[in-house]
């Protein structure tokens, strides 16, 4: 660090960064330019506008593991308010910039590029630019004006200058700025960063925020009706709605003007009152704006409500409510990749196209960071991967991206300590988490486990069963015999109580034979009585040849204990015929396995049906309702 004495007032002025050639004396506001060991006073620095940036000179932080200090800044004015570029000195000796506007942060570094830089006049939001072999898309083109500087800076900043700049966005949050204020454009390349990721310390303190006092940073009278209007969002909003007459006033500068007027008789009451604070997923936020938007689909109006939330450190968030379903939304500078069928890949996930429609602003109260107008419209495309939604909003001038996450109403009630209940949920929300998703996965895993076990048991049974022929005989039945009953020789059944299969084969043709059978345990005298009919018929008719019945029959007796057995047969029939009988012990079968699989699939199939029903409801209000898909698939098949 080098310290010099201010030539104007004598105060000590430090140069912390070797990159800094200019410093502004904190005492007398003189601009000092360093020439080797001497400093030159080139006059007073223009006074910076009061802003609500949480960053100040001396703020420290960390970027990609390297600590930095904020040693200076330039302040620029652009169409949507104030934008700061904070000069950073890193511990590893680098000099960088932290761009900050309306709660959005980007770290960038001056880079020398060999790429061809397009002229400023050629830039528009459809332009693609390659920088260091990386593709960038022009996001915003601004005729900004540098108001002035503060602290140490690596270049001369006099009393302000015009700064034509273009902001570009690349893949995965990459960010670039091309500064056309010098003869050769300066290229800064970096990335968008989250406030929390910078681990900033020594920030400005906002008493009114910390002490939860409604801030009155700016209060004025409505230029339409004269009612008092108070700005809540620490100078970070540029339009505000008069609570009395409903007109929207541009407050981006001292010359207040009416942007649009609303029908003051139309009142929509926010479910979460303006000024209410609540701690949500990533910090404490205050509701500062409310609007209602609507779309018209096939003549039917669908409206939803949006709440603008503000935190002086983290910027803006949104809550949207439709049919009692709430989404918590924030802007994103990460861009999706289109993967076909209108679907996109974003943040490691596939998002399916849900709906595209032109949304119109119906009603506004509170304040906003853009000039909101009654009736203004934009094309909104939503892509969903429940519980997240990616929304792309297009107007003539810009395209913005946001990511929403479903939030349970009870979570909101707790977060904002609401005393009135929120509207009941109707139907299924676009990104409402399916209660069947996790259940399906768990039931699926269990089903797989059970089916595997059943299969293992079945394979074990097949491997260990005897499947043994224990008796076989050929016999004959003569119609008209007085006594037809027969008994077999004694045979042995071994092993655990198991089944016995009796297979009979009768040489019947257009006839039948009925066999009264008994398997008798010679040891215990227990008899198992049963009867089987075998019939086989064939012929021809107008449809051709036909057959009915079967000459072979299998029957299974369950749980027959081991022992010595014999078989008794008593046939009767219409005609004499020969027949055979074979008795098998412990024959493996498949029906019980298949029945078990059927039982095990009952619940999973029910869960799958419920899940499909839930998804059908979810998609019913989308551009791709499932019933429509089914119908169109059916039509295709035809």
């Amino acid at each position: 660090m080098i310290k010099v004495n201010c030539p104007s007032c004598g105060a000590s002025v430090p140069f912390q960064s070797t990159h800094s050639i200019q410093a502004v004396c904190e005492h007398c506001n003189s601009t000092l330019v360093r020439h080797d060991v001497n400093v030159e006073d080139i006059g007073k620095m223009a006074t910076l506008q009061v802003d609500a940036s949480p960053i100040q000179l001396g703020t420290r932080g960390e970027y990609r593991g390297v600590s930095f200090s904020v040693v200076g800044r330039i302040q620029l004015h652009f169409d949507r308010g104030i934008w700061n570029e904070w000069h950073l000195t890193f511990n590893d000796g680098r000099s960088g910039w932290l761009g900050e506007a309306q709660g959005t942060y980007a770290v960038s570094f001056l880079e020398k590029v060999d790429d061809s830089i397009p002229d400023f006049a050629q830039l528009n939001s459809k332009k693609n630019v390659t920088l260091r072999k990386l593709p960038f898309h022009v996001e915003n083109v601004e005729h900004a004006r540098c108001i002035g500087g503060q602290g140490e800076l690596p270049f001369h900043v006099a009393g302000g200058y015009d700064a034509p700049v273009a902001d570009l966005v690349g893949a995965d949050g990459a960010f670039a700025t091309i500064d056309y204020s010098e003869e050769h454009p300066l290229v800064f390349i970096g990335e968008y960063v989250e406030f929390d990721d910078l681990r900033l310390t020594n920030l400005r303190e906002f008493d009114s925020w910390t002490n939860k006092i409604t801030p009155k940073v700016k209060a004025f009278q409505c230029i339409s009706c004269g009612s008092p209007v108070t700005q809540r969002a620490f100078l970070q909003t540029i339009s505000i709605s008069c609570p009395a007459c409903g007109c929207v006033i541009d407050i981006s500068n001292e010359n207040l003007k009416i942007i649009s007027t609303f029908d003051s008789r139309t009142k929509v009451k926010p479910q979460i009152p303006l000024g209410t604070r609540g701690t949500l997923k990533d910090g404490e936020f205050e509701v500062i704006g409310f609007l209602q938007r609507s779309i018209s689909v096939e003549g039917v109006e669908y409206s939803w409500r949006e709440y603008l939330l503000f935190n002086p450190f983290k910027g803006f968030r949104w809550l949207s409510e439709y049919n009692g379903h709430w989404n918590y939304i924030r802007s994103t500078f990460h861009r999706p990749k289109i993967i076909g069928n209108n679907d996109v890949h974003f943040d490691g996930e596939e998002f399916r196209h849900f709906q595209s429609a032109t949304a119109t602003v119906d009603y506004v109260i509170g304040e906003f960071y853009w000039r909101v107008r009654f009736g203004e419209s934009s094309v909104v495309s939503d892509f969903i991967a429940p519980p997240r939604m990616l929304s792309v909003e297009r107007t003539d001038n810009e395209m913005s991206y946001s990511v929403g996450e479903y939030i349970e109403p009870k979570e909101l009630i707790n977060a904002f300590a609401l005393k009135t209940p929120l509207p009941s949920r109707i139907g299924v929300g676009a990104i409402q988490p399916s209660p069947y998703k996790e259940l399906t996965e768990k039931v699926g895993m269990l089903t797989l486990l059970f089916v595997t076990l059943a299969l293992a048991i079945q394979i074990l049974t097949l491997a260990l069963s005897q499947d043994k022929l224990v008796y076989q005989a050929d016999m004959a039945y003569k119609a008209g015999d007085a006594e037809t009953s027969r008994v077999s020789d004694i045979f042995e059944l071994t092993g655990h109580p198991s089944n016995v299969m009796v297979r009979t084969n009768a040489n019947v043709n257009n006839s039948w034979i009925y066999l009264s059978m008994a398997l008798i345990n010679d040891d215990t005298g227990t008899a198992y009585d049963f009867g089987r009919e075998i019939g086989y018929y064939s012929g021809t008719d107008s449809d051709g040849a036909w057959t009915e019945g079967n000459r072979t029959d299998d029957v299974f007796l369950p749980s027959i204990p081991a022992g010595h057995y014999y078989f008794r047969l008593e046939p009767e029939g219409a005609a004499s015929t020969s027949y055979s009988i074979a008795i098998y012990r412990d024959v493996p079968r498949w029906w019980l396995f298949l029945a078990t699989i059927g039982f095990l699939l009952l619940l999973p199939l029910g869960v799958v049906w419920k899940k499909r029903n839930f998804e059908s409801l979810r998609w019913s209000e989308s551009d791709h309702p499932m019933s429509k898909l089914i119908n169109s698939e059916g039509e295709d098949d035809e």
Partner: protein
Amino acid sequence: MIRAFMVFGTLVLGAFTYGTYTGASFTPYDELKDVPKSIRNNPGVYRSVYSRLPHK
């Protein structure tokens, strides 16, 4: 519901294991105790009581 399915699945698997082991079947039959030994010598003295299956 998961717990209920675990219980249900375990019961079904248990029933399957028991049924497979004992050779479960739906064949209708009658079980008679202490039939006389004389059947082997004179099968005609035994008259089957089985009458569930109608026949022609």
